[in-house]
C-alpha cells in the first residue's frame, strides 16, 4: 500500500496538499507498517534480558547523543562570550529541552551559590528590599509557556550570498520553555514604586554584570522573576538561580542571573542598549529600545543540510512566533512563493510562544523552493527579505524576521537560498 492510494486535494502549487488528506495518509501508513511486520520474527535482544535500573536524573537515549546545541562560538580569546544554538531541525513539538536552549553569554556562566544570592530592588521606591530564594518560594507564582529569542537571531541571512547553513545554525537563537516564577509587579508593589518612576535597570550576577533598562510598564504587565524552567530550577546556562523573563521582547533584556533591579525615571543607557542592541538606520540615525520581536516563521523540516531520500509524500513542519501575541496564520509555498497553502497550526496556540505548523507535500522529485510566512493576531505579516533590507540600513543586524526559503535540489539536498 502506498500513499498514492489516498486521495488528496491539492492546496497550492507544486504538490502542497490539504492538511486533512495528510492526516488520513499518515494513519494509513501506520496500518500498512503493522501489516508488514513479520509475526514470527525472533524477539529483539532488548526484550530477552532485563532492562537497567532506575536512576536519579534521566538522560536521552545513547542513540541520541548527536542532538546537541550547534554553532557554538565565542569571541577570540574567550570561551564564554558568544552563543550556542537550539538544534531546531532535530526537535519537534514546541517546548525546547532545557539543556538544548540556546545560549548567549557575555562573560561565561557564573557558578552561583543559591544560598548567597539575593535579589535587591532599590532606586525610586519607598522601601529598598532584598529577597532570598527561600523568601521568593513563599510568593505567588505563575507559569507561562513562551519563547525567548535573541534579537541577533537569523542575522547571518543579511550576508550578500546565502550561507550553506542549517536551520539551527541560521535561526537557532530561539527556544520556548515553561517559565515559572513570581510576577515582578508583586515585588515592585511591595517596594512601593514612586510616581516619577518610569524604568528599571536590571543587572545580572555574571562577570559581565549584564545590565539593561526596561520600561516599568512591561515590568507591571507580564514580567516574571523566573525561578523554574520546564518544571525544574533554571539551568545555570539560563540564569540559575533566577532570571528576568520579559515575554516577546529581545532576549538580551531578560537578564540572566538577576540580582539587582534599580527603579529609575530614565533609562541608564547601558552599553548593551546603546552600543549593541540599537538599530542603525540608512540615514545614520539609530533606533534605541526596539524591544518586541517581530512576527516570524521558519520551516524546520525539510531544511538546510537535510536530505530528502526520494519523491513522495512528506510533511512540511516548522515554527512560527510573534513577540506581539498569538500566531494567526501560517502559509507555506512549494513553488518559491508563487502560490501559498494555509498550514495547520497545532494547539495550543499561545501568546508569545512558538506555534508548530504542519502541512502535507507530495514532492515530485523536481527542484522546489519551500517557504513559510506568518501573520500574527494583530495582522502583522512576516516580510520578504528584499522588503526588510530595503527599509533598513546596510549595517542593520538585529530583529531580522524575513521569510526563509529552502531550495530542494533534484538529488534531494536542501539548502538555504534567497528567493
Amino acid at each position, binding site marked *: 500500500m502506498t500513499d498514492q492510494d489516498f486521495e488528496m486535494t491539492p492546496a497550492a502549487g507544486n504538490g502542497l496538499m490539504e492538511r486533512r488528506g495528510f492526516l488520513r495518509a499518515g494513519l494509513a501508513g501506520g496500518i500498512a507498517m503493522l501489516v508488514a511486520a513479520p509475526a514470527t520474527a525472533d524477539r529483539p535482544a532488548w526484550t530477552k534480558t532485563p532492562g537497567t535500573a532506575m536512576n536519579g536524573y534521566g538522560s536521552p537515549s545513547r542513540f541520541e547523543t548527536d542532538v546537541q546545541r550547534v554553532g557554538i562560538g565565542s*569571541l*577570540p*580569546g*574567550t570561551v564564554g*562570550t558568544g552563543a550556542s544554538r537550539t538544534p531546531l531541525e532535530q526537535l519537534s513539538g514546541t517546548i525546547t529541552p532545557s539543556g538544548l536552549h540556546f545560549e548567549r553569554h*557575555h*562573560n561565561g556562566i557564573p557558578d552561583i551559590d543559591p544560598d548567597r544570592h539575593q535579589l*535587591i530592588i*532599590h532606586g525610586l521606591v519607598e*522601601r529598598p*528590599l*532584598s*529577597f*532570598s530564594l527561600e*523568601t521568593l518560594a*513563599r510568593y*505567588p507564582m*505563575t507559569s507561562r509557556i513562551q519563547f525567548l529569542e535573541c534579537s541577533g537571531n537569523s542575522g547571518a541571512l543579511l550576508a550578500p550570498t546565502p550561507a550553506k547553513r542549517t536551520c539551527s545554525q541560521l535561526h537557532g537563537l530561539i527556544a520556548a520553555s515553561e517559565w515559572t516564577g*513570581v*510576577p515582578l*509587579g*508583586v*515585588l*515592585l*508593589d*511591595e*517596594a512601593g*514604586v514612586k510616581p516619577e*518612576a*518610569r524604568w528599571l535597570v536590571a*543587572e545580572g550576577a555574571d*562577570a*559581565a*554584570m549584564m*545590565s539593561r533598562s526596561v*520600561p*516599568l*510598564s512591561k515590568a*507591571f*504587565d*507580564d514580567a516574571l522573576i523566573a525561578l523554574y524552567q520546564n518544571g525544574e530550577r533554571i539551568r545555570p546556562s539560563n540564569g540559575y538561580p533566577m532570571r528576568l523573563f520579559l515575554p516577546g521582547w529581545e532576549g538580551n533584556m531578560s537578564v540572566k542571573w538577576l540580582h539587582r533591579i*534599580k527603579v*529609575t525615571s530614565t533609562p*541608564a*543607557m*547601558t*552599553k548593551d542598549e*546603546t*552600543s549593541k542592541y540599537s538599530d*542603525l538606520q540608512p540615514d*545614520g*540615525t*539609530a*533606533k*534605541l*529600545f*526596539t*524591544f518586541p520581536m517581530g512576527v516570524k516563521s521558519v520551516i524546520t523540516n525539510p531544511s538546510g543540510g537535510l536530505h530528502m531520500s526520494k519523491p513522495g509524500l512528506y510533511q512540511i513542519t516548522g515554527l512560527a512566533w510573534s513577540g506581539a501575541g498569538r500566531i494567526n496564520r501560517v502559509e507555506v509555498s512549494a513553488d518559491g512563493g508563487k502560490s501559498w497553502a494555509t498550514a495547520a497550526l497545532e494547539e495550543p496556540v499561545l501568546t508569545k510562544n512558538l506555534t508548530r505548523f504542519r502541512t502535507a507535500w507530495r514532492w515530485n522529485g523536481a527542484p522546489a523552493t519551500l517557504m513559510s510566512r506568518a501573520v500574527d493576531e494583530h495582522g502583522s505579516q512576516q516580510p520578504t527579505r528584499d522588503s526588510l533590507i530595503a527599509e533598513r*540600513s546596510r*549595517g542593520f543586524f538585529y530583529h531580522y524576521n524575513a521569510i526563509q526559503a529552502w531550495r530542494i535540489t533534484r538529488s534531494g539536498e536542501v539548502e538555504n537560498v534567497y528567493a
Partner: protein
Amino acid sequence: MFTPDRWLGTAFCFIVCTSAATGTWAGEGPSLGVELSVDEVAAVDITVMPDGEGLPAGSGNAKAGTSVYVANCMACHGEKGVGGVNDTLVGGHGTLTSDRPQKTIGSYWPYATTLFDYVRRAMPYQTPGSLENNELYAVTAYLLHLNGIIEEDKILNAETLPEIEMPNRDNFVWAYSP
C-alpha cells in the same frame, strides 16, 4: 487570591492603559522582603546614569590612563584601541551611513557615562572589578581622548564626565516611549 485570570486581567490592562500599572499587584505577596539601609544599597549600586548619577568619587585624565590601558586592556583591544583581537575602541567616524558602518565609542556611543559604567562592571575581561575608581576615570579619559573627544589633560570626575557631549548623541531616536 492569585489566579491565572488575574494575569490575563493585567495583560489586558496593559493594552488599554498607557502608563505603568503601579499598584496593580499590591497585596498579592506575603511581604517578606528585607528592608535595606542606604549604605547596604550604596555598596551594591554600580549603575551610572547619563546625568552622572551613580558616579563615584575619584578622577583621572588621559595621560594617567595611558598606563592603565597598556597594562590592562591593550592585549585584547590593541595599541591605542585599534587592531586588537577584540572590539575596536577607536575610529569609525563618518562611517555610519556607509556600506560598512564601524560602530565605536567615538563614532557611535551616545553617552560618555556608559563607558565608565561598562568598564567598571565588565572590564578588564579576565579580572572585572579590579580597577580603582581613579584608574577607571583615567582609562575612560584615555579612550575618549583617542577618539578625539577630549584633550589629553582634561580631568574626568563625577562632574565633568557627564558634561561630555558625544559626537553621535543626537542621532539616536527612541523607538519606545514610556
